[in-house]
């Protein structure tokens, strides 16, 4: 176990200490007084490494990360899990813009809301299945160019309307699945994806992840299941195939 007091520390020093700790076999880190330091957990490896972050980490938390678990006991900022390959990020608050850009594996759980451009360019590959679950709301450009993986938007604090107040939802989506708890009229958002009711296979799949999410934040699973789930999947893996002609 290693405790780092990050007060007044530059990110370069902080991340150097974390990398050094991992190289020396430290499995559990407590980082105190984090105040906006960028790149915490950037490019680190090790499935059994756990980092507890007290304070508010800066941008690119867990970028290029490959295995470890990061728990933030507060809000996070932009670019959480940028191009992350494996591991887990748990945020006990809100996240900023661009969550999980190009993410290829692992899980990101956000208790509260997230900003614009969540899950863009997300990709699945073989057994690598990236999953983002957001407890609250998201901003526009949600799941833009999504190419794989799973995003679950719970909207736990939402009212019962069937409206979703965002723009450019899933535009350019050509892979992956989005689950939401509203039967929205998806044609308003994108021609490239469609909304369906979930089947038993989807329900089984969701159960494992939702249970993990609920346990991570001490939310009752009943609360999550109060409303039915719907899924959004792309109409085509080749959305722009018809656009071109060869010279």
């Amino acid at each position, binding site marked *: 176990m290693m405790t780092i007091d990050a007060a007044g520390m530059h990110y370069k020093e902080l991340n150097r200490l974390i990398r050094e700790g991992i190289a020396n076999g430290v499995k559990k880190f407590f980082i105190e007084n984090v105040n906006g330091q960028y790149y915490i957990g950037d490019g680190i490896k090790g499935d059994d490494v756990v980092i507890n972050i007290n304070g508010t980490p800066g941008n690119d938390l867990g970028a*290029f990360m490959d295995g470890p678990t990061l728990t933030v006991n507060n809000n996070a900022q932009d670019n959480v899990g940028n191009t992350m390959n494996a591991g887990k990020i748990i945020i006990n608050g809100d996240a900023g813009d661009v969550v999980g850009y190009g993410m290829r594996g692992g899980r990101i759980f956000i208790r509260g809301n997230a900003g614009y451009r969540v899950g863009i360019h997300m990709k699945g590959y073989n057994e690598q299945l990236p999953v983002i679950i957001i407890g609250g709301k998201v901003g526009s450009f949600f799941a833009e160019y999504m190419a794989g993986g799973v995003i679950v938007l719970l909207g736990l604090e939402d009212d019962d309307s069937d409206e979703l107040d965002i723009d450019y939802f899933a535009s350019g989506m050509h892979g992956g699945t989005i689950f939401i708890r509203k039967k929205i009229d998806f044609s308003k958002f994108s021609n490239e994806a469609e909304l369906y009711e979930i089947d038993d296979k989807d329900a089984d799949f969701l159960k494992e992840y939702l249970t993990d999410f609920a346990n991570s934040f001490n939310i009752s699973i009943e609360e999550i299941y109060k409303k039915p789930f719907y899924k959004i999947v792309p109409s085509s893996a080749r959305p722009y195939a018809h656009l*071109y002609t060869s010279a």
Partner: protein
Amino acid sequence: MTKSSFSNIQSEYLAVIDHNKCVRCKRCIQNCGWGTYSFGGDKILADHSKCAACGRCYTYCPEGAISIIKNPTVIRENANWQEPLVKNIWRQSETGGIVISGMGTTFKYKKYFDHILLDACQVTNPSIDPLREPMELRTYLGKKPSKLDLDFDEKGEPVLKTKMPPQIELQTPFVFGAMSYGSISLNAQKAMALAARALGIVMNTGEGGLHDDLVPFGKNIIVQVASGRFGVHRDYLNSGVAVEIKIGQGAKPGIGGHLPGEKIGIDISRTRMIPVGTDAISPAPHHDIYSIEDLRQLIYAIKEATEYEKPVSVKVAAVHNIAAIVSGIVRAGADIVYIDGYSGGTGAAPTVIRDHVGIPIELALAQVDERLREEGIRNEASIIAAGSIRSSADAVKAIALGADAVAIGTAALIVMGCHVCGKCNTGNCSWGITTQRPELVRRLDPEVYGERLYNLISAWSHEIQEVLGAMGVNSIESLRGSRERLRGIELTDAELKALGIKHAGL
């Protein structure tokens, strides 16, 4: 709209077979990737409409029985309504599609390299004979410190105190330009990897991930990160000598990459880490980069992931405000800036973009070098110039205009047999370069073409040594940014000013 099968577009070329010479060996049928030839029972038949004039068939015809000729049945000549324009109108009216082409622009824009002359020594400051005197071409790419601090050891010998930022060491100032596995075949990449290793230079993965077979070539590879993040992960970032963030490409500034799903087979899927058959879409905007500050964030995210041991390069297309853009990129922390001029190549680009967007590399380079010097930050980053470097002369002129090294893309493909037919996007390349069809890829032998690439770059390097000798300098460093050694010919005052050179005779 229903599509009519009737087309106004007539064949551009005719594949003419001399049936007296033809021995019906059918080698042309095997060699043509376009399906031009078939056997009609007693003789070879040619479907001219499929011919790309790629030169494969007549190169491999043992009897010399094939001629590819321009279709003499031309569209009526008209200086205004030129043939390609008329044909594109037909093509688009028949399909409704954006016209896509491969390679660089075919437009006859002014080539500034051809209007720049090099200096040589006469009598005073004599020339140097490169055959018997050392001539240094070694080049280091990366940030250089603005000053050096020295310590002295107990013997009084100087010891460098300044920690040098990471550098790429090149034995000659050439790199292979970024071409992804997907846009070109794995064998084409292997040929470049073999040549790069033998030459002590580097190749670039492009945005297509790093195939397992290329991992052992890490010391001669720059890995690329673009908006689609294909195959990008921690170990990938650490597997080469540098990481390049791709923002733009000369053939298609402001336009991204798009490898169509039908080209994503098992092996490409594995390398790009995406499922088989899905489009690999890599839009021009990174969607997390909207400012110099955002670019800085990605540069340092990569530096953190590589523990500050790899230089980070940023590749941009040469566009109108390139000097200000590069100044921003350097201030964002890039160690290398790769500038790609408008005649650079591509695997596929909308023809309208390829032919009409961007500026020549010569002008971009001169302006960037000038601006960075004025701002006192020229040492902060190295510059790679690209965008159809066609000869050692182009390379020397680019370096004298301010580049640290030049990148070779199209020229490297020409080595492998490319006849610049510009149909890379179709995936039917008869030479096995821009195709994934196994029967076509197989014919490109990486060993053979690796050696030819080695020969070309060695020959160009020797030529550069000759030119340096004639100029009376014994190191490429001494020529870098030395525009006083250049003169313009047939250029206007505005052009000379943009290039920062005098007219010949002055």
